[in-house]
């Protein structure tokens, strides 16, 4: 599903953000990407959702080396990746339902099918009463659920979430993790980037620990609580 081989990343002539990072993710796996703020988690995710290309090394996604992807192929591959951004990145002028519908519209899904699926998903994440609400009128937690719904509406093979629990309380964070686990059970490979070590400890999934741009360890699966 995902293979990183000696990946080195830097912005322009700046320092190395990722240094010789190597790991692989099996299809259907669930991983936490942990580390302190500034360790390189978001940058690694940006490589994973094809917003950045490494300065050296090789990244293989879905069996393709991303270095050789054309613009059109990159766009097509992005449709297989759902992303929950730390700042949500909702389009402020579109309603919740239209924000969630975007990936399907881009993929050319017929409008009737798209409306039905979008409404069902928003109801599933508890926003059935806010379908036509603009993001600015929703709370942070509600905006986050819209962002999650947008990330999963296209049934992605790979789901990436960048600090998804940063804007919710502990109970909300646990509920969110259960939602990601539910999606993982449906076959989606999940990578959650977080610095919330306490939360990570409560869920028995593998960890990719990153410190100063280096992958220190792939933690073994913790024992179930």
């Amino acid at each position: 599903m995902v293979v990183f081989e000696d990946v080195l990343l830097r912005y322009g002539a700046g320092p190395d953000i990722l240094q010789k990072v190597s790991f692989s993710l099996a299809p259907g796996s669930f991983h936490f990407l942990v580390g302190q703020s500034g360790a390189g988690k978001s940058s690694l995710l940006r490589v994973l959702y094809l917003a950045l290309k490494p300065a050296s090394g090789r990244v293989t996604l879905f069996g393709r080396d991303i270095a050789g992807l054309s613009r059109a192929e990159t766009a097509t591959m992005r449709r297989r990746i759902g992303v929950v951004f730390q700042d949500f990145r909702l389009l402020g002028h579109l309603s919740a339902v239209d924000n969630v519908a975007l990936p399907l519209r881009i993929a050319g899904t017929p409008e009737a099918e798209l409306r039905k699926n979008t409404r069902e998903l928003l109801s599933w994440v508890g926003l059935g009463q806010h379908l036509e609400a603009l993001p600015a009128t929703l709370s942070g937690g509600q905006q986050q659920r819209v962002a999650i719904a947008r990330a999963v509406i296209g049934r992605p093979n790979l789901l990436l979430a960048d600090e998804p629990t940063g804007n919710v309380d502990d109970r909300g964070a646990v509920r969110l993790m259960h939602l990601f686990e539910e999606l993982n059970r449906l076959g989606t490979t999940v990578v959650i980037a977080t610095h919330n070590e306490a939360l990570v400890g409560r869920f028995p999934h593998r960890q990719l620990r990153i410190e100063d741009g280096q992958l220190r360890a792939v933690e073994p699966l913790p024992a179930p609580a």
Partner: protein
Amino acid sequence: MLRHDLPPDRDAGFFLPAIVGFMVFLAGLALAGRMATENLLARWQSSIESAFTVELPPGPEESQGAAEVRQQAVLAVIAATPGVASATLLSDAEKWRLLSPWLGTEAASLDLPLPDLVAVATVPGAAIDLVALTGRLQAASPGASIDDHGRWRGAIAGLARAADLAALGLLLLIGAAAAATVVFVTRAALSSHRRVIEILHLIGAHDGYIAGQFQRHALVPGLLGAVAGSLAAAAAFEAARRWLPGVSPDQLSLTPLQWAGFALLAPGATLLASATVRYTVLRALKRLV
């Protein structure tokens, strides 16, 4: 309203229709003016082509009676020619009236010898062999010649070509200016919608999808501007036709077919603007990561 993923903005909401409308207004005036001129020149050309003048020099020491016999013989030759609608021998008064712009109104008193002139009208489309006719006329009246107004025909044809080139050049200039302005407005819109473009890219939009969003974003304002511009041009043309000093409405009229062609200006300009938007967006996106 066409659905699209871009937020409303001032560029597309005001500037684009205003620019497209103004450009279409100018293009409309140029087009209508050219079509009206074409009609006018065609009428002149047609009236010149369906007439010629026979010039009969006076015979030496010829009596009045002999001259009349010769004139009648000439008229008989002309009347017997297939394709001739009418032939009229101009009176002295008519000849002096024709000469008065050059010789003045007092010229008639100078007793200058003038050739006889026969104004001949032909059946429209008739092909008369003027060389053969000249031969027959010279047999009836030595020295007779035909003026087929070739000099004027050439001048009108030249004027028509010049008007065509001027109109074409003007339309090309207006089109280029409109396209350049649309490129500028589109680049501004690309800059202000950068965040939206990035999000669309990240969730899997191809460049063509994003370009399509910009096209949809611009289509309705552009069409509204183009329709308003072409209506304003039509109104201005009609006003000029009716109230311009020295111009009669009939001289500057358009046929229904020409008005239909004029009506295509708005959709044509909208398509041009839309294609320009698409081209500009696709080029700009290729420069992005």
